[in-house]
């Protein structure tokens, strides 16, 4: 309950700071603040289509957020969800456009490929940590840029670049690999909720989950009690990457408003992996919290475009709002700090 009140206050603070930023250099726009926020809300929850967009954007955020939560559980900060999502999206999209399979099976194979790709990318950081003691924050940050660079490279090769195109864009994913859905409301969100339940079960109700949390709580004590810390670390990073890879696969296979997935490009994954850190932070270490936080961030993202078109307020404002929300939630007690 206290967490909920805190979260609501954090969101309010974010909106207030956002309003201040709006009027700071343009006092004339003060009258526009209410209009901008109304448009933001309208674009996030105002209509069936808006809600569908919010949920569609929330699905990958929830998956990657769960991945970061798993990392937190083992005392690891996986800053590499972005890179893992890029790998996942790349593999899922490749299976989607290069392979021919019956509908349904195709989507499942592509999703599985994306998950495996993300898991592999994540496990690499886990292995470097367990084997060489390389700090996962550094390896995963650098891994993000390696993944982005590899994708940029692949998009210049004939295997990935769409024939007849000079720019870096992949062929369209076959309809058989697209996630089924109605407009933007697609199956991804169901996958995300299922993933949340599965991760909760695994972390809280399984032997492996217990070991993982024990390592996160105190690696030395875990080691003493017979848990193999190294393999637990690798396992945590693998699952973390798997979930981020799933997020990337959902992005690559989700239908857009016209019903076919957006083709793979350098910008397809956007900032899902970074935003997922916000989601994991706001989720406060609970599966339900992460789902709600994912919907909240998804709503901000969905509403930002409507805000820009309807009220003329640049969409970048939601980045400011999101940053303030996280800062407010992450700061233990503002009162104690200011004392």
């Amino acid at each position, binding site marked *: 309950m206290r967490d909920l009140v805190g979260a609501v206050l954090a969101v309010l603070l974010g909106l207030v700071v956002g309003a201040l930023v709006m009027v700071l250099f343009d006092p004339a726009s003060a009258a526009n603040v209410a209009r901008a926020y109304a448009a933001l809300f309208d674009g996030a929850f105002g209509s069936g289509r808006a809600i569908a967009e919010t949920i569609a954007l929330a699905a990958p955020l929830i998956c990657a957020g769960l991945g970061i939560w798993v990392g937190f559980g083992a005392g690891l900060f996986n800053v590499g969800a972005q890179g893992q999502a890029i790998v996942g999206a790349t593999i899922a999209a490749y299976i989607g456009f290069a392979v021919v399979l019956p509908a349904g099976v195709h989507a499942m194979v592509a999703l599985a490929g994306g998950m495996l790709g993300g898991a592999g990318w994540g496990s690499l950081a886990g292995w470097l940590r367990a084997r060489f003691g390389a700090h996962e924050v550094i390896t995963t*940050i650098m*891994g993000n840029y390696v993944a982005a660079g590899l994708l940029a490279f692949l998009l210049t090769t004939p295997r990935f670049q769409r024939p007849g195109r000079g720019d870096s864009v992949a062929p369209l994913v076959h309809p058989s690999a697209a996630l089924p859905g109605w407009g933007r409301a697609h199956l991804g969100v169901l996958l995300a909720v299922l993933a949340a339940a599965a991760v909760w079960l695994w972390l809280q109700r399984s032997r492996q989950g217990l070991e993982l949390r024990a390592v996160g709580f105190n690696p030395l004590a875990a080691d003493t009690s017979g848990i193999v810390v190294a393999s637990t670390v690798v396992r945590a990073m693998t699952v973390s990457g798997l979930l981020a890879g799933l997020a990337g696969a959902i992005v690559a296979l989700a239908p857009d408003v016209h019903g076919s997935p957006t083709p793979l490009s350098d910008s397809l994954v956007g900032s899902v992996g970074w935003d997922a850190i916000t989601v994991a932070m706001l989720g406060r270490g609970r599966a339900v919290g992460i789902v709600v936080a994912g919907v909240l961030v998804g709503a901000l993202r969905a509403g930002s475009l409507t805000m820009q078109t309807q009220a003329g307020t640049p969409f970048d404002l939601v980045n*400011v709002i*999101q940053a303030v929300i996280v*800062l407010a939630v992450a700061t233990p007690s503002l009162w104690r700090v200011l004392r």
Partner: protein
Amino acid sequence: MNRRRLALLATIVLLGLAVVTSGDAVFALSGQFDRFGLPAVRLPGRALVLACAGVAGVAAAIGRRWSPLVGLKALVVGFVGWAAAGSALPFLVGNQVAGTVAYATPLVLGALGGLLCERSGVVNISIEGQFLLAAFASTIVASVTGVLAFGVLAGVLAGLVMAALLAFFSIQALVGQVMLGIVLNLLAAGLTGFWFAQIMVPQPLVFNSAPVLNRWVLAGLAAASVPVVWLLLFRTKWGLRIRAAGEHPQAVASAGLDVRRLRWQAVLLGGAFAGLGGCFFTLATVGQFSRNITSGYGFIALAALIMGRWQPGRVALMALGFGFVMQLAGQTQALGTPINSQLLLILPYVATIVAVAGLVGRVRAPAASGQNYQAER
């Protein structure tokens, strides 16, 4: 053994390259429009690569302290020889040097900023955010006033503001430093993106057309900053205290010093350097800001900081090395050589991963960096 390993690796790679090298490599020592024309040098590609392999091999065989560095240099020269061989266009040596310095300038300044910060015990993931806000602030102030010095000052101030946020939330509010850095990057991206669209886009001539700063000025400042930071950290009492705060804050506290105060000072000073670096992206290029103009350079600076093992001289060398690679990527694209420029561009990141894994030498961060200090009550 460790001394020899790197040089040996260079030898093997060069021998491999020599097999696939064919044709002559042409090096143009002066640009087409330079006042004094120097002749272009034409060298047989394979012989050049083999010669480099020989040098690296000798370095490996002797195995002295300088062996890794010589091996690395031979590798770089041989690599360029391989890339340039068989290309119709000459390899522009002057361009390569100028481009390397240009790329390295913000990297050096950003990495030195991060160095001061991390030496005091505060991890700085938000060099990128400091760059970005500084790039924005310097452009807008220089555009409105028309005075470059004011623009640079504004950039430094913007770096200070971002650093103050980092200092406040990590030192006072004890927010996790990695998380905090990510959030600050998001904040800087949001603020600059928003104000760019709100202020600069409608009136670009007023707010987004700064006079252009000669990039060698900033390059000179960056070069001068390296010994300054080194002197500050390693030859002053203050520097000793900063380093102690980053290694063992409890010891500093029990000597009667204020850890928080020391960290505030180091973080703010670091922010000023990063802010100066941020000016480069706009003032020293075309005088214009655009959304997310720093595009990840802050993280390359972070990579240089780590690869340079938190030591000013090494950090600057690494920044130069990364600058070299980035410029080479641009040039090879123009030459149409067999190496893909996208793959070259990920080299700094891969190198950093390899380095932190301890596969090449030992990389150790300041012991207390990343840990917030809380006074015992």
